[in-house]
């Protein structure tokens, strides 16, 4: 009988043991943490904010490539999925300032020809990259409520700044989407992640939203101009975007807002920015030192912030420039400019106007073929060396990654916005100041502080567009500028291979906007495609 008892106990004990195991269904990751853990310390807030910014600069959670932010279904090659490379391709390759040699590369075909189809991984990539950053901003704002951060004492102020920066960055990305796609879907921190289908917002309504967000961020939370840590946005960044927004308001809303543009230019200029004395030092490995002119930059680093887009793309991309000049391991022989943008410089040798930093050896001036590496000059505006000409201090051994920071806003552009707004009838500024600003840009370019760059009568809106081509080429504003001047799709300005023919030809108006990605059209029934796609 005792034996029998034992025989019953064994299975019984096993059953109890089994029941105890049911608790083991609560499994948690080893390294990854929950939102409540991330947002439980002030360092956690900083690291969450670091990712918000890093989604500008990196392609994933591993330097170079690896653990991509954007799934391979959207962009197969992670090296193409960072913000700047995508944005550059859409803003520059579609214009007189750029073509890429390798038409076998993803999404290149159709960009410079202005015949892109509704399926293009560069277009899709930028769209999903922008929304990725918007989602991170929303998440940060959701968690950084006053109530939640009150416990952090003195760090709470820092977190409040972060929160305002997140609002600024979100507004920036919405501005990008508004500019490129017109009417994107719209999501804010009020929409709980994973539970809703975003509605489409009209371009005009999005304009109002971006405007109000920028003002709100600038007025409550963003640091005073030039007072924040390097790499982070301050009030001047928000003002600069407001100025840009108002400059293009007519395109977005049909209403001119040039006076508002001037208002914000004045605020920035009053904050004490000055032109950096040497234009050729603007895009170097140590351009983080250019705090005189740079308002807000995307930060890259050959060791700590590595990816194959960003300024890495802008040192390798230009065709046939030896690595010894661009400070990297060699050219990808891709990017060239059309002769139309080169000849915006009366003397494109670089001997007088030092902004003309063109590689001519072995290249022809005329872009006789869109897909030939030697057809068209390339530019070494971006060089991964320091002001002294030394190699970038943080460069990687392979010479892949760039240290050059990319100014999203700098004073030079603000001068140009001011001048154009004045010329277009904006109030709050005056023609003499406008003239002086343009003259200052010209003097710096020519390294001649006494030069009369132009006469006051030469200062016209058309001059401004050309001057933007000289001052801001490769800084991702060309497409937006040509649209504002109604020269992007029309025959009023033709460049090599516009519309796919060598002499250039007008294309349909629909190309003023990019198509909403078909992937999103199929997953979001609230969306309507842009006309013509």
């Amino acid at each position, binding site marked *: 009988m005792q034996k029998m008892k034992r*025989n019953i106990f064994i299975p019984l004990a096993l059953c109890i043991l089994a029941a105890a195991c049911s608790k083991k269904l609560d499994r948690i990751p080893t390294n990854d943490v929950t939102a409540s853990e991330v947002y439980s310390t002030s360092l956690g807030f900083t*690291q969450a904010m670091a*990712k918000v910014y890093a989604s500008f600069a990196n392609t994933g959670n591993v330097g170079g490539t690896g653990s991509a932010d954007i799934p391979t279904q959207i*962009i197969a090659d992670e090296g193409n999925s960072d913000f700047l490379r995508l944005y550059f391709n859409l803003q520059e390759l579609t214009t007189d300032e750029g073509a890429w040699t390798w038409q076998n590369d*993803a999404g290149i075909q159709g960009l410079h020809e202005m015949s892109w189809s509704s399926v293009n991984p560069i277009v899709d990539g930028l769209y999903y990259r922008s929304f990725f950053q918007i989602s991170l901003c929303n998440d940060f704002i959701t968690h950084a409520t006053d109530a939640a951060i009150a416990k952090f004492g003195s760090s709470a102020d820092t977190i409040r700044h972060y929160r305002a920066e997140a609002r600024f960055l979100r507004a920036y990305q919405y501005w990008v989407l508004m500019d490129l796609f017109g009417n994107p879907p719209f999501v804010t921190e009020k929409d709980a992640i994973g539970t809703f289908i975003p509605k489409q917002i009209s371009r005009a309504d999005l304009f109002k939203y971006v405007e109000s967000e920028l003002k709100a961020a600038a007025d409550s939370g963003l640091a005073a101009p030039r007072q924040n840590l390097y*790499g982070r946005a301050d009030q001047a960044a928000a003002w600069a975007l407001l100025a840009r927004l108002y400059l293009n308001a007519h395109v977005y809303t049909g209403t001119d807002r040039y006076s508002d543009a001037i208002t914000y230019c004045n605020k920035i200029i009053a904050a004490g920015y000055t032109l950096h004395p040497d234009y050729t030092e603007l895009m170097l490995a140590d351009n983080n030192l250019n705090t005189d002119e740079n308002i807000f930059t995307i930060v890259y680093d050959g060791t700590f912030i590595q990816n194959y887009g960003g300024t890495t793309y802008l040192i390798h991309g230009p065709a046939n420039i030896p690595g010894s000049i661009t400070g990297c391991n060699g050219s990808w022989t891709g990017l060239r400019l059309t002769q139309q943008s080169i000849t915006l410089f009366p003397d494109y040798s670089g001997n007088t106007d030092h902004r003309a930093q063109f590689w001519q050896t072995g290249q022809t001036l005329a872009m006789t073929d869109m897909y030939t590496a030697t057809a068209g000059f390339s530019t070494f505006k971006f060089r991964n060396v320091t002001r002294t000409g030394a190699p970038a201090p943080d460069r990687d051994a392979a010479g892949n990654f760039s240290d050059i920071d990319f100014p999203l806003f700098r004073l030079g552009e603000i001068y140009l916005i001011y001048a154009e707004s004045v010329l277009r009838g904006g109030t709050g500024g005056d023609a003499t100041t406008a003239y002086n600003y343009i003259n200052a840009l010209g003097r710096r370019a020519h390294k001649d502080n006494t030069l009369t760059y132009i006469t006051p009568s030469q200062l016209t809106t058309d001059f401004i567009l050309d001057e933007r081509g000289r001052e801001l080429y490769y800084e991702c504003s060309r497409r937006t500028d040509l649209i504002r001047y109604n020269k992007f799709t029309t025959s009023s300005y033709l460049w090599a291979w516009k519309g796919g023919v060598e002499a250039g030809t007008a294309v349909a108006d629909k190309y003023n906007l990019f198509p909403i990605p078909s992937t999103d059209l*199929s*997953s*979001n029934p609230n969306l309507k495609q842009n006309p013509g796609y």
Partner: protein
Amino acid sequence: MPDRTNAGRLGSLPCTQFKTTCIMQTRLLVRIPILLLFLSLTSVLSAQKRTITGKVTDTKDGSPLPGVSVQPKGNPRSGVVTGSDGSFSLSVDANTKILVFTFVGYGTIERPVTGAPMDIALTAGSSGLNEIVVIGYGTARKKDLTGSIATISEKEFQKGVITTPEQMIAGKVAGVSIISNSGQPGAGSTIRIRGGSSLNASNDPLIVIDGVPLDNEIPLGQKSAIAGASNPLSFINPNDIESFTVLKDASAAAIYGTRAANGVILITTKKGHSGGELKVNFASNNTVSNLIKQVAVLSPAQFRTVVNANGTAAQKAMLGGANTNWQDQVYRTGLGTTDNISLSGGIKNLPYRLSLGYQNQNGILKTDNLQKTSASLTLNPWLFDNHLKVDLKLQGSIENARFGNQAAIGGAVSFDPTQPVYTKSPRFGGYYEWLDPTSATGLTNLAGRNPLGLLEEHYDKSTPKRGIGNLQLDYKFHFLPDLHANLNTGFDLADGKGTTFIPDSAAESYLAGGTGGSNNKYRSTKTNTLFEFYLSYNKDLKAIKSHFDVLGGYSYNNYLTKIYNYANYYASGKMVPNSQPAFAFDKPEHTLISWFGRANYNFEDKYLLTGTIRYDGSSRFAPQNRWALFPSVAFAWKIKSEQFLQNTDVVSDLKLRLGYGLTGQQDGIGNYDYLSYYALSDSNAAYQFGNNYYQGYRPGGFYANRKWEQTATSNIGIDYGFLDNRITGAIDVYYKKTTNLLNNVPQPAGSNFSAYIVANVGDMNNKGVEFSINLQPIRTRDLTWDLGFNVTYNKNTITNLTVVPNDTSYVGFPSGTIAGGIGGQFAEINAVDGSKNTFYLYRQVYDVKGNPIEGVFQDKNGDGIINQKDLYKSKPADPKTFMGFTTNVNYRHWNAGFVLRASLGNYAYNNNWSQTGTLNQVLGSPVLYNASSNYLVTHFKGSNAQDLLSDYYISNASFLRMDNATVGYNFGAISHSRANLRVNAGVQNVFVITKYKGLDPEIAAGTGNTPGIDNNLYPRPRTYFLGLNLDF
């Protein structure tokens, strides 16, 4: 006692009696020292009770039948197995009245003990209806099965070079499609039972080895389930496998609830036999593999013509003077050898089996090599008056692999054929490379590297190990023998580690000054544990002509992987600066907990009813969705047992089966992502605030409401046998409906942290018919001829997709990633009313000569724009019908056979044509690349972004393939009947008949492949083999 016990046979007989044998045995003994150990163990055997001797022969020709199980009725565990001469000697209790003789394929007979030597004749093909088959948590007589279950035992296995177990049953089972993933040695296979019930969660069946469920899931971000191993099943030595049981329908599989939606494959390994004599089997197989076909590319002359006609001056200048066939350069004849030895027998109540295997296989891709050493030990003692049955099994294997760099496969197709293989310069290992004097390394940036250099200067070596073991205790209660308690504890441990070494001179990762190369480690381990317990009770109730058995139990499965992260190193061993990972390792883990039960009721041995239930919890779901119930019910009617069929010989078996059940699916989805988790970036993906760099926290995409994917299967089947079971087979009709399909689908932009999430998206069904027939048209003393044929028709239809609730305009989500062109494109769609992976392409427009016109497609909606609205749903990638045909002829000592497989209605997209068949392929990059010879047909420039989505590139890839053909000779008893020698030879992958023009029409959906997308497959070689099998 006559000296016929095995104990003395090798150990005590003087050599003089068996001169010839002795020499051979001596050799073997030298070769296998471990044998000696067993000989000393076996010598302790002695018989004390009554001894029965006899001989078992084949009724066909009177030849002795070795391996027949002889057991006293009622005491099966004290049986023996006949020796190579068919004889047996069995020691039994004095009161033993009846002996039971069982042999696979020959059925079972019972004979009374008379005291005289028992000479028994067994008849082949008298069906395996009394065969005991393994089912989930127990065994059953084949004739009592109610579900759709197929068993394949050793003699039906595919022969030849089998490097991974599942290939042994390819083409053998209706409803089961097994496609090898590539021609790489040890590469895995894509197994689909009844088409697979999921979209892209997992469609792999659950594989259970002797009660231990295997974990074949590939951890997120990893290339294989076990680091450095091509395929987790390759660790199992095929020679150790006794049988496969495939549980196809839900009523059979539902006892495995959670993971049974794609069917279950139970693998049973060989065991020793109690009291049986020592049997030694030695098998050796030697192989030669060759590439059958190359990807068609431009010849050097054609290539020169194309470049000279279309290239720039600079490009023309790039042409070299050599004529190189790069595919010849990267492939070779692969030699391989496989040797196995097994020892089995029993010492009193301790049956044992030990097997050792060694395999060394060269891939046809140069440098590709797999060596595997495996060992397994099985002990199955009975203790406490046969009340406690113990099954202990340990098996382990160590692989030593060098993986050929598969980048060379695509490289060989596209590298410039006018360039030489080698240069005279010692630079870059002496391999020709594209050079650019302006780049820091001297190499052209973004140019493809020498394919042979990619192989020979790339050392990816790993030594993955795996150990699987379990201890199963089955206790028959002393006071109530009808009640059993069964405890099964098991483990599955794997440790895969390796190193990728690239010398600093190699172009693949060259740094200026030769300071690069790489020396990178990788490693992952698995620690999977199993604990199961059940009670079973069975009872005959003769009064009401009933038998019933019930079972109830609990199962705990834990799957723990540890993935090590390492910094990157140069070849010199110097660390790549700032490459330290954020975390030294990651340990993804998931757990399954289940309660299960089954009840069988048998009335009059005619009507069978089975019900099962499983209540499953998975750690992969949020607490509110964690648990789910998976019931099933099945009914079978043994019509043959009815009066009206009792006296006919024409119908020898007839059974109707009806079944219904629910099964679940939770593989192939993330472990934790019902919540958002934040991942810290590495320090080289940080961001700078002021003077500090901060690693960032990235929130992961998540899907809070994720539910179990569930499949409801209805099955109607008939098992039949005619003419004394010379004709047998089954017909099954099934309907599988999967709800809450789990799939990785795009999320509306801005609505989640990731643009793609694994979500429950809809419903799908599979309807199908399976038919199998086995014939024995000739059954004479000297000649037998067996034929087996099976055919499966499966139609898959997506019935509902709910990515966006109530969105009627939803077109579906893309699948089938294709390479090339603008990238990130998909050739297939999953859409309502279509089959999964249906091609979704533009309709190509052709000129009057029938050639495709580049960039001209049918404007389906007539809006003047060719956009995604003009894509149309074309053919599905998966076949609707597939078949297997097996035949074997035995004539005296000869046997010959072959296995054919056919697939009908599958379509393939020739990604090689579309990606490389253009002028842009040749001229559109910094260096010249070779093109597919399809360019000479289309003359496509490749400048239209939509070209890749032309339906010109899909074609019917139906095929008929002969998997193998073998011929064998059985020398029978040699060396005075001390041993039995068989020799066989054959060819694997004999031929393929297809209209498809690409390399191989059979495209597996396994790792790295997309169903129906043909792109740079590791070619499946043709393999010749010669095997030798020695039993003694």
